[in-house]
């Protein structure tokens, strides 16, 4: 579905992505984990065709961005980190706008129902809660009936209830056999949703495998009871305990 090879991207004197290789299989949810500034978003935006890599290769749905950008855009669902949709539009107007860009896909009202915003369809976006806004962003990513979904930190800043609701929606999308690339820094989210994960730090992939494999791996063996270890322990063991700035 998605194959990324030797990806490299430098901003001025900062190496954001330093030789990343990834492979996402059809029907799986792949998690890209890492602390802030690890290069997750840059990697994802290169895969989404929004940022140009300095070198390396991205193959998505068997196509490349430089030759099939229009076709790829029709078949991808994208949710960006921190997009603020227009506050003055209603939920329905926003979804209709995004729906109009795609050749095929469900009706706007069906997508709104799917993300459980039917009570809010006439509300202004500015009046929605954080969780409702994220579900609206998900709706805008689903309007084209995508084969591949990019979710960049979809639950950051949400309360536990809103986060669980969003997880259920993502699980439903997985059940339909679709493929997802998800970035997050919530380990619980990755353990629940992802079949496989890669942990990034300083622009490189420093560990990869299923959440279970990683938990069972050497990084957590130092703990007294490996059976109760979780992905969070793996994450902290691998990326260190110091605080990261943005």
């Amino acid at each position, binding site marked *: 579905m998605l194959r990324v090879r030797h990806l490299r991207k430098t901003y001025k004197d900062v190496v954001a992505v330093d030789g990343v290789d990834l492979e996402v299989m059809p029907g799986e949810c792949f998690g890209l984990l890492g602390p802030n500034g690890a290069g997750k978003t840059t990697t994802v935006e290169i895969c989404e065709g929004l940022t140009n890599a300095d070198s390396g290769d991205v193959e998505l749905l068997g196509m490349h961005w430089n030759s099939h950008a229009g076709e790829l855009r029709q078949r991808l669902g*994208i949710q960006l980190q921190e997009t603020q949709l227009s506050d*003055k539009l209603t939920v329905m107007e926003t979804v*209709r706008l995004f729906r*109009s860009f795609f050749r095929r896909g469900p009706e706007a009202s069906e997508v709104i129902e799917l993300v459980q915003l039917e009570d809010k369809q006439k509300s202004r976006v500015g009046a929605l809660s954080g969780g409702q806004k994220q579900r609206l962003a998900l709706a805008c990513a689903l309007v084209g009936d995508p084969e591949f979904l990019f979710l960049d930190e979809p639950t950051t800043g949400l309360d536990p209830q809103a986060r669980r609701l969003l997880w259920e929606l993502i699980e439903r999308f997985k059940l339909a056999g679709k493929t997802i690339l998800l970035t997050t820094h919530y380990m619980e989210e990755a353990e629940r949703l992802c079949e496989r994960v890669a942990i990034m730090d300083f622009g490189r992939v420093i560990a990869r495998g299923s959440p279970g494999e990683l938990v069972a791996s050497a990084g957590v063996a130092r703990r007294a009871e490996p059976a109760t270890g979780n992905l969070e322990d793996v994450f902290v063991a691998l990326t260190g305990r110091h605080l990261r700035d943005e």
Partner: protein
Amino acid sequence: MNSALGKHPLAQLTLVRFREFVREPEAVFWVFVFPILLAAGLGLAFRSRPADVLKIAATTPELVRALRQEKLLNVRSLPAPAAEEALRTGKLALVVLPAQGGGVLYRYDDANPDGRAARMLADAAVQRAAGRADPVAAGDRLMHDPGSRYIDFLLPGLVGMNLMGSGIWSIAFAIVDARRKKLMKRLIATPMPRQFYLLSFLISRLALLVIEVAVVVGFGVLVFGVPLRGSLAVLAAFCLLGSLSFTAMGLLIACRVRTIEAVSGMANVVMLPMWIASGVFFSADRFPDALQPLIRALPLTAVIDALRANMLEGSNLAQLAPEAGVLGAWLIVCFTLALKLFRWS
């Protein structure tokens, strides 16, 4: 809304533009209400008034009788010390005193135009009362014609100013806001044809333009009787061309900026010289000759000059070709540069 047309991305994007405008009360105020308030206020302040009657005093009944023949003078009878005091404190423009040998003496401040005018009027009245015959018969035909008043001059200026403000602001602000919120990045992550995004601004601008020009010009014509001596098609053509030039300018201003503060500053830097120099409130001819070529090259000057010539003098398109050329040049240069420099993220 369920028609194929309603589902077209350009239709949806244009609808979004309208919704965002209508749901922003401040924008509606600045585009529609403000120019009307300004025109009404200035129209009232500078309305044509009957000439002022000048207050003077005389110290003898004979002089008072003679002077009262002049309708433009308000003559009081006062004793000399009281008259002197009133003159000194500015309550009177002139005091007329008898002089030796049947003559008259005029007391006034010759630095005061009212004093000089009152002296001329008073002297003519005194001489005529003494039997002077005017060798040349003189009559007056007063001028209060529509087309020569301040409001007639002002209205095309306000229309031009409005075209500039709404053209530059509407697009520059919306684009920078969308970029800042990463909404623009989100949109280009969809299959949205990018030219439709920019086109939607243009279409909504032109639709709002019709309303905003009609509101301001209609107000001037109906309330103040401002004349429309030229063809309405030429008027419309210049509003359209002007608005397109300013929209292109707004696009150029916004092509890379990421913050509202920066775009506000840039828009003001661009607009301020035109507010001052382009003849919105007073004629641009008042600036020194050396600056004139520069001022004539500004797009606002071209719009206002063309609208004024069209509305007040009835000039046709051929006579306004230089102004059309200036606007066309701004449109092409700004639009080409903006597309070259534009950043989508």
